[in-house]
Each structure stands twice: as C-alpha cells, then as structure tokens.
C-alpha cells in the first residue's frame, strides 16, 4: 500500500467494514513501515479521541420538554380540527338531506291537497247529482276499473259546482272552507236534500262548503275524471 492509498482508506481501516481483510493487513503493514503515515495515524487517533470527548459531552442531550408539549398540543389541535371538520361536513350533508326530505314531503302533501284522489269506497254518484240516489242517479258499473272511478275535486275557487243547501243564503266565499266528508247517502236528508230510500245506506263522499259559523252552506258531489 502506498502513502496516498493509506491516507484515503487506511487511516480508519479497522473500522471500515467495506474494506477486505487483505486491505486492512496492508494498511497495518504500511503504517509499521512508514513513519510519516504512522504520525498521521497518531494525529488521526488523537482527533478521534477529541471528537469522542465532544460526543460524550453532548451524548445526554435531549430536546427540551417544551418541544414535546408543543407537539402534543399541535397534534391535539390538528386531529380535533380534523374531527370537527369531518363532523361539520357530515352534519351539513345530513341537514341537506333532511331539507330535501322535508321539501319532498311538503310538496307531496301540497299536491295531495290540490288533487286528492278519492278513496275507493262503495257506490259513487255522478257529478252534480244532488238528488243523491234519486232515480236519475247513475250508479257505477260493477267491475269497472278503479282508477277510472277516481274522483277529483275541482279547484277550491270553482265554487260554482256547489249547490246551496235549502235555507242557506248566498255567502261570501272568503270566509268559507271546503270540507270533504264521507257519509251515508241518507245523511244528506238531514241537510235538507231529497234522498232515495233505495240508496240511503250507500257510502258516498261529498264536499261541504262550511261557513265561518261552522255550518254547511252548500254541497257538492265530486266529479268523475
């Protein structure tokens, strides 16, 4: 081994695991035969000793406790913020879903109130048949499709279809309300309307126009579609 080689790899040959045993032996041999490299190695070892003293002096050093405190605080803040943000997002979506649901239900209710389907009940009467089962009333054909039998009310403001009950005076429609009721045809007699005894037990659905005093003023039988 030459001096240049020794300076490059031989000085720390004992520690350098990347060197082969032969290279270490060559380094040992060279330092025994070269006084200059021996002096260099002594100086090297002395520097190593000095550095170890510095290493020993700082070996026990650790980061101050405040660093750990700060990091833990930051950790809590970060993860709590993350959780809060996630909860806020979930809550936002839940609120939006609830709002949509409420909207759909409200719209559905409004629509049902605007165009209510008539429950399938027994005998039905032709629109405007206020004789309520008199001979002229048309009875529904048996076996007819139920959907075709559905009745709808006219719009609330179309009050022209109502027939004043006997004894009722013309009224102001602002203070009235339409009430849909299901009753036996015979009950129309109590309102002063003529009722055929043959159909008196039939259940029918009628719209009553109720005045602000709570008494029915007019009556309407729902029309067929």
């Amino acid at each position: 081994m030459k001096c240049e080689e020794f300076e490059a790899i031989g000085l720390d040959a004992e520690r350098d695991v990347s060197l082969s045993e032969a290279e270490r032996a060559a380094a040992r041999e060279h330092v025994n035969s070269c006084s200059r490299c021996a002096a260099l190695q002594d100086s090297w070892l002395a520097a190593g000793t000095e550095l170890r003293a510095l290493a020993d002096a700082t070996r026990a050093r650790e980061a101050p406790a405040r660093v750990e405190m700060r990091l833990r605080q930051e950790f809590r803040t970060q993860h709590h913020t993350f959780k809060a943000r996630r909860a806020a997002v979930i809550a936002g979506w839940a609120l939006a879903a609830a709002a949509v649901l409420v909207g759909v239900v409200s719209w559905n209710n409004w629509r049902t109130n605007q165009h209510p389907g008539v429950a399938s009940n027994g005998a039905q009467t032709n629109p405007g048949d206020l004789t309520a089962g008199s001979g002229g009333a048309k009875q529904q054909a048996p076996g007819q499709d139920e959907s075709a039998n559905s009745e709808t009310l006219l719009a609330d403001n179309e009050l022209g279809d109502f027939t004043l009950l006997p004894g009722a005076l013309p009224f102001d429609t602002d203070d009235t309300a339409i009430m849909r009721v299901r009753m036996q045809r015979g009950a129309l007699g109590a309102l002063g309307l003529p009722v055929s005894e043959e159909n008196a037990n039939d259940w029918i659905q009628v719209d009553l126009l109720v005045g602000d005093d709570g008494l029915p003023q007019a009556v309407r039988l729902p029309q067929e579609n």
Partner: protein
Amino acid sequence: MRIAEPERDDVLLRRAARGDEEAFTLLYRRHQAAMYRFALRMTGNNWAAEEIVQDVFMTLMRQPKKYDASRGTIGAFLYGIARNRVMKYMERLPREVALEEKNEDGTGSGIVLQDNATPAAWAEKRERVEQIRAAVLELPAEFREAVVLCELEEMSYEEAATMAGCPIGTIRSRLHRGRALLMAKLEMLRDLPRRASAVR
C-alpha cells in the same frame, strides 16, 4: 432484539396518523434525542436544534404518508428530514446573528461535562471540548455532516452513506477531508498556548 408488533415504529406511525396521541408521543420519545443531538452537533445552536426537532416531528405529524417503509426505517426518514432542515438553517445562517446561548443551568454552548475532579480540570476540559466543537462547526457542511454522523453519532460508513444519500466512497472521502481539516485546526489550537508561553 425484536420489538413487539404494537410498538414497532411503523405501527405507531399508523396509529398516530389515525389520531392516537400516545402512539405519536411514543414515537417522538424514541427518536427525539438522536434528532436533537444531530441537529445540535451540526448547528452548534440549542435553539436551532430545538426548532429543527420540532419541524421534523411536525412534518411527521402532518404528512405521515410521506414515509415509505420500503425505502428505510422511520429513524432514517427522520434523519433525512432533519438533515434537510439543518442544511436550510446553514444556508440562511450568514443572514442571522446568533445570540449568546445559555443552558438552563446558566452555562453556555450546550455542552455538559461531568465527573471532572477539580474545577481547574473541569475548566480545562471544557475549554478543550469547546475548541473541538468550534472546529467541527467551522468545517464545510458536507465534511461536518460526515464527521458528525461517523464520529459523533458513531454510525458505520454504510449507515452514514444511507443517511446522507451518497455512496460509501463519498462518505469516506468527506470524512477523510473533514478529519484532516479538523486535525489541522486542532493542531493549531494546541500550538497556540505553547507559542504564547514560548514568547513569554
């Protein structure tokens, strides 16, 4: 010795990423001293070392997915971050004016000396260690890093090469040159008192 599964670094990191503070604290306590010593030995500044350690673990906390287990241990990953922070610190160093540092016990420089028989011996050793520290800090960053990793952190050349992200030959060469500069500096410091006494 094999570390139990729940206490392995990568397991702790996964737990920490899910918000487990205890796992993060355990990870911190396991690695903070090595990071702090490395930063302190590289910068020679307590405050900078503290800031670097904080930055390192802040990065780990905020970006745990940056760690790739296939590329090495968490220790090596943290060293990598610390190394970057140290280099950044040293880049901006000329623009900063260091204040005189004091330890918590009122002494300076971050060096703690123990078991010195007499105050005179304590003072002498302290002065010598201070000179070495100053000499190390005067080395160019790359040489200093090799000296710190191989001599002060007592890593093998292979480990130091991994940490520094360079081949073993480069580490060996840097260490060689760093040590040569250090020896020259220390020789000069040793000679100063002799020359002074000879003049008298």
